């Protein structure tokens, strides 16, 4: 039987009736029309469906929508800040880190979380931070460029180093 789901999506409260067997990806794409969240395998293998749940990357294809009761979900449509695209998105654009763009939403969200937790990641840390999201087009090279550039940009923006760190 369908159940009521209350949660926050991209900063807005949402209330919806969902079937227990609906995945979060399905709920976001089909019920809310947030088709920026992609799916490449539906089994947790590729990272295309990555969204942030309470700020942490999560694979929406193997998460039940109902498991997100009361939580805050951020999709690619919600990472822009104050009407301006996020510095990570800007850097992806500038560096041509998106070829076909299918992995991009998931990767942008992973990178947003990576740079929040670690504002100046090393090469190895960037590689590790991208390792849950497969990109079949780029060889990750330009994506790594974008992460480096975004890190610099975000460091310039942050009023104090503490702001960039993890919330909890």
């Amino acid at each position: 039987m369908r159940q009521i789901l209350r949660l926050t999506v991209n900063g807005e409260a949402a209330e919806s009736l969902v079937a227990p067997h609906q995945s979060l990806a399905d709920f976001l794409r089909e019920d809310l029309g947030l088709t920026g969240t992609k799916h490449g395998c539906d089994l947790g293998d590729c990272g295309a469906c990555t969204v942030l749940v309470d700020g942490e990357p999560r694979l929406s294809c193997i998460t039940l929508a109902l498991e997100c009761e009361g939580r805050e979900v951020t999709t690619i449509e919600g990472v822009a800040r104050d009407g301006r695209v996020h510095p990570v998105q800007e850097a992806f654009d500038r560096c041509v880190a998106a070829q076909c763009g299918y992995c991009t939403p998931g990767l942008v969200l992973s990178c947003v979380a990576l740079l929040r937790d670690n504002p100046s990641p090393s090469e190895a840390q960037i590689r590790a931070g991208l390792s849950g999201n497969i990109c079949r087009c780029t060889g990750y090279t330009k994506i790594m460029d974008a992460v480096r550039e975004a890190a610099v940009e975000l460091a310039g923006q942050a009023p104090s180093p503490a702001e960039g760190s993890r919330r909890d």
Partner: protein
Amino acid sequence: MMRLPAFDYRVPREVGEAVSLLAEYGEDAKVLAGGTDLLPSMKQGLFTPKVLVSLRGMAELRGIRDAEGGGLRVGAATTLRDVARDPRVLALYPALADACSTVATHIIQGTGTLGGNVLLDTRCTYYNQSAFWRTALGFCLKKGGDVCHVARTSPTCMATASADTVPALILMGANARLVGAAGERVVPVESLYTDDGRDWNTLRPGELLTEVLLPPPAPGSAILHRKMRRRQAIDYGFLLAAVRVDGDLAGGLTDARVVVSCVGPRPVVTPLGDLVAGRPLTAELAEEIAHAAARPAAPLTTHGVMPSYRKKMIRVTVRRALDTLRGEPSAAV
């Protein structure tokens, strides 16, 4: 999109309620922790529970607490990432922290739980496939069929223990707190597994794993976790090993144990007290331990990687772990 089969969904607020739900629904219920093992398997038609009992409503199942008399109590629904990042775990049980961070990817580590890992279903290349694929091949012993595609004459299923954290947990002497309608019991993690990949764990019907209990580390003992996989992320191991030595490495060891996993339904534990007692951990002893640890393991075609290679790699991996303890840089160039 691959769909999940339909089910009912319950979110108990406390362990008592969860246990009575599990008792009520019996075989029809499945526990949902992070869902990173269960939900893909359900999409592949491996399970079709009528009810999922979610652990998310029970705060008591999450978090890491100091245990009386030393050691830690890790709530079963604590995520692998939270375990790996906990300063106490890092200080006392570095091998466990290591093991948590070799699971899948950092994203899955943030969702998957320690309890779910301990109770990760056994895996096999003939089992972890879609319903269509299994129809095309013919169902196997573990799900819907009467033959094991790995060992055609075997009366039991050969699917392998695959959880990254379990070898280290066994060597740490970790225990599991199991709560059922009939009460609770604490058993060694080592005793949770059987030799039949089909009926692979010793939980009683309706039992919930609530905590993993980590005893204080024995003084003078060291544990290392090792994993071999094809791909450096998004990959199960084709070989898992954990190595423990006790005593004075240079003066003389008092005990040693090795656990090898991904080679059969249960992790293979090799006690080596007799072999090592009183001997310093030399290169020769390391080699002997590695041989002894490999001997009882009999990898089969459960994985894409050749059994003979996996067998060979047990020796290399175990010996290299010991070399690391000896302060030798790993033999790799």
